[in-house]
């Protein structure tokens, strides 16, 4: 059975791109979120195998969302999607419970490597 994924990013462009990469690799994107609040809410609803999380989102950022999700489910598998130069935020996200990260601009191979590592 294909792994389920929740894609969180405030830009449709990024959501689409990540979804495409994952779907082509055989994953099932079960939901999308545009804000941190939505991400937490949808995680509860969908219990996906994997979450991709943008760091900067309106209405509760990605790090805050990671914290919330991990509070609910300490085993949540969250992959951070970050821009260059956000290392401090990525570190904070890892401390908050994120399992791995990819840096934009995305290369499909690197995204999939990271996903594999997270799903272990």
């Amino acid at each position, binding site marked *: 059975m294909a792994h389920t994924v929740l894609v969180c990013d405030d830009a449709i462009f990024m959501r689409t791109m990540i979804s495409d990469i994952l779907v082509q690799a055989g994953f099932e994107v079960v939901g999308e979120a545009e804000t941190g609040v939505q991400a937490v809410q949808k995680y509860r609803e969908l219990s996906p195998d994997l979450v991709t999380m943008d760091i900067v989102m309106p209405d509760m950022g990605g790090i805050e969302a990671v914290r919330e999700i991990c509070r609910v489910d300490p085993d949540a598998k969250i992959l951070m999607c970050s821009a260059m130069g956000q290392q401090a935020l990525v570190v904070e996200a890892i*401390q908050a419970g994120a399992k791995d990260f990819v840096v934009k601009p995305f290369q499909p191979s690197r995204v999939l490597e990271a996903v594999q590592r997270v799903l272990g």
Partner: protein
Amino acid sequence: MDLARYAALFLDESRSHLRTCTRLLLEWERDPSAAEPVDGLFRAIHTLKGMAATMGYERLAGGAHEVETLLAGVREGAVPRGAALVDALLGAVDLLERGVELAAAGRDADLDAGAIAGLVRRAVPAAAPAGRRRKTRSAAEGPAVAGAVGLVVEVRIRPDAPMRGARALLALRRAEALGEVREVRPPAATFEFDGFGGAFEFRFLGRASEAALTAAIREAGDVETVTVTVPEPAAGRGGTEGRGRHIRVDLARLDSLTGQVAELVVARHRLAELAALAPGGELEGLALRIGRLVTGVQQDVIAARLTPVWQVFDRFPRAVRDLAKQLGKQVDFRVEGEDIELDRAILDEIGDPIVHLLRNALDHGIEAPAERRAAGKPEAGRVVVAASRERASVVVRISDDGRGIDRARVLAKAKTLGVLEAGVEALPDEQLLRVLARAGFSTAERVSAVSGRGVGIDAVVERLRALGGSLEMASERGRGSTFTLRLPLTLAIVRALLARTGAERYAVPLTFVAETVEFDALPRTEVQGREAVLLRGRALPTLHLDRLVGRPAGAVPRRPGIILEVGGRQAALVVDALLGQQEIVVEAFDAPLGTPPFLSGATILPDGAPALILDAAVLV
């Protein structure tokens, strides 16, 4: 590994980081739009947090974390900048400073973490919660268990990998999943900084095999190499580059060394005297050689004691800021010459006297903003502490552009108190200081919480004299005052010129000797009715050593004179004979009552006889 060994290092570095914070906060207060202070603050607090966590000081690490979170909020724009924020941060830095001392004293649990959290909460508006983070102290930084050795793991992240620091953290997480990780170097808290190159090492304790550990770490991705070694049990922490270049020495041990070198110096002189009795012999050559070696050791010991003044001066900006706030005054404060070096023992002693003078300057010198405006001055008073080298001494000037000292009032008060005779109508600077330095003398109209009653300059003068230094002052009504502290470079050993009157010998520190002359060959003159000599067209007041020490004048022909110089003023001191230069060891001098003020100490000469040390600052 024994963490206590690192406690002193922790204390030192933490203090330095918090000093940096204070400095940055004061800068920030001046220019709230500046971004750099926030980043610098963040970094300093972040480092403190990492160190505290490594040492196992959980309360302190927690407090630092609160402050760090607040700063993160500021950086992200979630927390408004302004005076209230700076106040809160200064308060938090104070609490952290206290926390550092407590933690180092083994009392981390006494730290009032709630107070820090409270300060932080008040600085953050309700609408923008600072976002309490999950406890970030990782097991990797937990306190060590003594005795265990484990494996030493070196990990290198691929140099072309993005965000090597974040990747390194993931690698560390993988290791932590298998066992206990400690002694992470560089500390995990520093991974996210730009300087982190991607290589780190740590000690691993656990059941996992080397192969399993290596594989797990590689699973973190972008890992170039993992090297696992079993350390020699006694190998300690050696092998890191840069270590061992500096060692910390207990000041008491250095003091003991200095004292012994001082005695060695005296013994060398005696040896030279004995060797001179048998010229040309083997003893003379040996004495010369020992003499050179002792001089070398002495210079090195003095150099080892020298400390840049900023180590003490760094606390002045904060003190001045707080005082100014308390007094409702605006002050533009500057410190100059921070890199000038001074004997640690002297430096430790002058901090309080300088703070005392600064307090006076702010309380009595600098006027309220309205008064300054009315006087045509900028609203912010200017206060400067400047250190500089002059000859063999270090000079520290504390100047303000305030109202200066009201001589008429000092004069009147001095007469009422009977400090001055009724006839005196003018107070030159040096006399003004002498009057002000009378214990308990004060013209302050009110007793302020800041300066207390009176100026208390007597205490400052006493302190400086005990150090072999001096205090001078100059003041101009409406323009401000300047206090000048003159200090020997080092306490223990002073190069001095020995002079004789009758059979008594005296030492004059070379710090104050401009030159020596043949006194009786100089033309005589008078200055303001006082005896003087002309040296290259300049009239110098004359002082007779025999008269000063209450001896009858001897009938010595061709008497030499020592030209004393203190702060640009000169005088000629007439003596019976000069006995050459020598290093002297200044002995603690508990002057009996009635000792003339120009005698500042005593020393033992190589032949075992005592000599008194003349204080040129009082004579000139």
